[in-house]
């Protein structure tokens, strides 16, 4: 029982959804993706804007259609835990939080294991890019709030992109921007029809870039890649599900390509912030 919030009923559940008989659900076995306008290699259009949190040292907001995240960067500021002794390097600490209304099922206010893990992944993906050696005894806190999530892969990759833009906006010295990108492996052939042969493994799955939630429901596997385009380095890779190594190498290439496109968007958003601050000062 949470005593620090307005109390609600102890147990509440989402109602059971009943689909009408004639309900047509999207399947990957047809001609198109869930978003019919997109080709397999297409990402959703990205809207990225820096500087919406005026109390933060740096901030950014990213939107990939339904996926919406905000990120605020605080620091460098004094390290809170002094237990570790003198440290010649700064500490990067990322925390990702899902708003209770961000997913189909209402999320709890408590920090759950998934949020903890995603926080760690974002930290690992961004650390290679930040010049922490220039920030002794300091901490940089990156807070990410997911307002709406449409698929966890795109959500994680958007979090990385958004946080990296916010860090640059905070004026923190970085080696490079980090772009995050996701891809899903989805079989175009219904499994039941291929089960007579030796399983679906014989037909390589289609790689859908930046899959949404509806597409993720059919995925055999997915990959999230974080990449520094100028330095040509992968800062994080996370693959789940099962796939042949050829599929993976192919999707890594696709993701690297996509990250270059995302980099252009980030570049543009950050330059815009320069122009804006120039106009404001005039």
């Amino acid at each position, binding site marked *: 029982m949470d*005593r620090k919030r*307005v*109390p609600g009923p102890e147990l509440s559940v989402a109602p059971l959804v009943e689909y009408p008989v004639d309900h047509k659900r999207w399947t990957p076995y047809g001609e198109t993706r869930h978003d019919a306008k997109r080709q397999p290699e297409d990402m959703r259009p990205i809207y990225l804007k820096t500087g919406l949190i005026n109390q933060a040292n740096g901030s950014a907001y990213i939107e990939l259609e339904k996926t919406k995240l905000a990120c605020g960067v605080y620091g460098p500021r004094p390290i809170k835990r002094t237990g570790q002794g003198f440290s010649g390097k700064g500490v990067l600490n990322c925390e990702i939080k899902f708003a209770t209304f961000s997913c189909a099922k209402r999320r709890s206010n408590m920090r759950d294991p998934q949020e903890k893990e995603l926080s760690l992944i974002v930290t690992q993906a961004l650390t290679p890019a930040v010049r922490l050696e220039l920030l002794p005894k300091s901490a940089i806190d990156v807070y990410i709030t997911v307002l709406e999530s449409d698929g966890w892969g795109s959500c994680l990759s958007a979090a990385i992109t958004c946080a990296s833009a916010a860090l640059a906006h905070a004026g923190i010295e970085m080696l490079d921007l980090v772009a995050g990108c996701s891809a899903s492996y989805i079989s175009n052939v219904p499994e039941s029809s291929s089960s007579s042969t030796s399983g679906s493994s014989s037909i390589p799955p289609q790689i859908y870039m930046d899959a949404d939630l509806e597409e993720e429901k059919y995925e055999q596997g997915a990959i999230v890649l974080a990449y520094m385009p100028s330095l040509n380095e992968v800062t994080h890779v996370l693959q789940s599900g099962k796939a042949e190594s050829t599929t993976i190498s192919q999707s890594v290439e696709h993701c690297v390509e996509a990250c270059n496109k995302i980099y252009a968007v980030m570049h543009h958003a950050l330059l815009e912030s320069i122009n804006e601050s120039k106009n404001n000062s005039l």
Partner: protein
Amino acid sequence: MARLDRTRTANQLRPFFSSQNLLNRADGSAQFDFGGSSVLCSVVGPAEVKIRDEKLDRATIEVIARPLVGLPGIKDKSRERSIRETLEPLILSGLHPRTGIQIVVQTMKDDGCILSTAFNATVLALLDAGIPLNSILGSVTCIVDEKSGEILLDPTTEELSQAKSTHVFVFDNKSSISTTGAAAMDLDSESSPILFSDSTGLYTEEEYFKCANICHKAAQTVHGFIRTAVQKKLEKEYQQTHA
């Protein structure tokens, strides 16, 4: 029209009761009752304060509100904040920099108007602890009745459940000192500065200021009562030490 308890008129308060210096281990303590509602308050301080909360130029005031039963929730948090922020300008905290004054407000019996009862108990406890104040305060609650539209002072729990709106007011005694006697009787709205107000429900502006006036008058009685209580206690102590 008779009220639910059939013994009071609309602008009559329930009988007061107070007693000070109840707790041995606190620097000051007091109990204040409005009829069936009772709040016990203890004050510890000026005492050491956590470095994190330390203020360079004044004392840190901490209020802890505890409910009648169970663990404190957000309603208690709101009450803590109301009491703390009202007392901050009242206590001459600049006299005790880098110290802490801790005030614990414990509900003992609940029959409506707990916030008002708590305010009055707190002032008595602060006086008992000898904390310097620039004025004392008195708090009164009133409601506008749903059916009759009448303003009822110091409502019970039962009356509260039939209220259209509820109003809690706190007044200090600065204004009433200057306007003692006859002047105190003719209170127009200009002469009753409000220290704290918290109103919920649905009501008009006129209703609100009418309530403010009625409560201000009633608060004078509370001020008087607090003054007498302190006076009596001091007399008693004087007799004891000089007996």
